[in-house]
């Protein structure tokens, strides 16, 4: 029963997911929208509580066992508690009962998000430039036929899309464009076809209960 009921639910909701694809009637579309937006939101809210509990537990354990770099776990726990209190009692833009400013210094969630969280994310994103350089170096080392081909193609495209390319040969930009729009797109479409068929097959396997790994524990 513990496994049959989830399997039945998956089958029912799987079919409910397919029907709106072909039935445009508002009755069907509204049910679909309600499942996707409302029910899923409730599930996410519950799962978020579980997730945050797990995060705190892992870091408490790290501090307790004094594992490597355990001190950083304190930063996480303190940041978590401070932002939770400010968010819950101070409101998003400081409209809650908790005072979230001292003079002209504001520390409401929106301000914290814009001045701490976003710059940190942007910093990580900026690191991509360096990672790209190191990855390109590795990929373009002409050790094999494929790597050499990749190197030559990348070189043509890089030269072709900058003004220098046109100065070298007026055909170079259009050749670079051709590489991007013909062989590149052909390869991508091949992968996409496989992906689309794979998605149908995987969905069928799950809806029909053939693939059950996702079911998790317990009989």
């Amino acid at each position: 029963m513990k496994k049959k009921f989830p399997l039945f639910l998956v089958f029912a909701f799987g079919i409910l997911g397919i029907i709106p694809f072909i039935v445009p009637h508002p009755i069907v579309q509204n049910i679909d929208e309600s499942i996707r937006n409302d029910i899923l939101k409730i599930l996410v809210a519950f799962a978020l509580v579980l997730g945050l509990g797990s995060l705190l537990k892992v870091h408490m354990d790290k501090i307790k066992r004094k594992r490597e770099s355990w001190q950083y776990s304190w930063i996480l726990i303190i940041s978590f508690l401070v932002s939770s209190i400010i968010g819950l009692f101070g409101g998003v833009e400081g409209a809650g009962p908790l005072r979230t400013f001292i003079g002209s210094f504001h520390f409401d969630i929106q301000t914290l998000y814009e001045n701490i969280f976003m710059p940190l994310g942007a910093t990580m994103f900026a690191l991509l430039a360096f990672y790209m350089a190191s990855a390109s170096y590795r990929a373009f080392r002409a050790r094999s036929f494929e790597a050499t081909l990749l190197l030559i193609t990348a070189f043509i495209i890089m030269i072709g899309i900058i003004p220098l390319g046109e100065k070298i040969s007026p055909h170079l930009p259009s050749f670079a464009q051709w590489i991007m729009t013909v062989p590149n797109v052909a390869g991508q479409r091949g992968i996409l076809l496989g992906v689309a068929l794979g998605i149908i097959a995987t969905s069928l396997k799950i809806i029909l209960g053939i693939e059950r790994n996702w079911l998790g524990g317990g009989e």
Partner: protein
Amino acid sequence: MTLILLAAIFALAPPGQVRAYDTPSDGGEAIIIEWQLSQDDAALTGYEIYRSEDGVDFQKVGFLGRGRTSYEDETEDDKTYFYKVAAVSDTARTLSEPTPQVMSSPQWLNREKINIFIAMFLFGGLILYFIYHARKGKELFIRKIAGLQAVDDAVGRATEMGKPILYSLGLGFVEDIATIASLNILSEVAKKCAKYDTQLICPNNRPIVYTVAREIVKEAYTEVGRPDAFDPDSVYFLTDSQFAYAAGVSGIMVREKPATNFFIGYFYAESLILAETGASTGAIQIAGTDALAQLPFFITACDYTLIGEELYAASAYISREPLLLGAIKGEDWGKLIIGTVLIVASILGLLTKFPILGLFR
């Protein structure tokens, strides 16, 4: 007399054959109005669309530039409407005859998607046919996939080195097929980890994915008879922020130095940060995604990459479950049929100039 003559000179030809009909295959609340271009189209600023509920009092509801021949009007269902279209220039405006009354209503069937639906059914039938054969015990040949063959070696290496295995499910939601496929692979990897007593680290980006992943790993340990070896803290929620997740997982890789990293699921820009950090720690890396934009990064920085459909085939390949292998066989046949149709249609399209390629739009 002069005024009548001037009006005759500057009069515009009205748009021809104006017709209005309920938008087909939609959820209602829309009517399409179509017309033929006015003979004076080149001299027009455009066309004005007028609507009436009683056929007498017409109100302007839209304007389109010259050269345009159709307009979709937002309406209320089960209410009658009449339409007129006017050809408009800077100095004149000529209205067409009103259309017969028309009404919008929601449809129960999207006829435009029937071809996709039939293809989906045929393909589904093919898969079920091969699953049926697999169930009867027929031996099925599946080509070797290097990335999946390396899973055993990767787990073995971690065991020998006494180091953990890192498994990242990416940034996909639980309803994404890539995430579901990754959860299936996680189950197989967790079974191997349980068997060889290798530590598994699985940091998650989505709360729901975390709860499902945790149950899957727990079940895997139970299935191989090692429920005691399951560490509930091995699968945990890290953050739902993209770059915070990248920073967190990179930190784990640098600190814990896993022998093997799995990056399987749906990834965005963080893919390269993760794969390059993993490569710098000397770990064997197996990646798999159906995110086309991230595939080049994984191919460059990882030892093995599951490209697109290989990701979906993985759990069947690793588990060797006959029913799952049957589905892969069905997929291959589906691809063969689509490939054949595309090639034949392209040749026909090229040879006969027949607009057969339009079928694939």
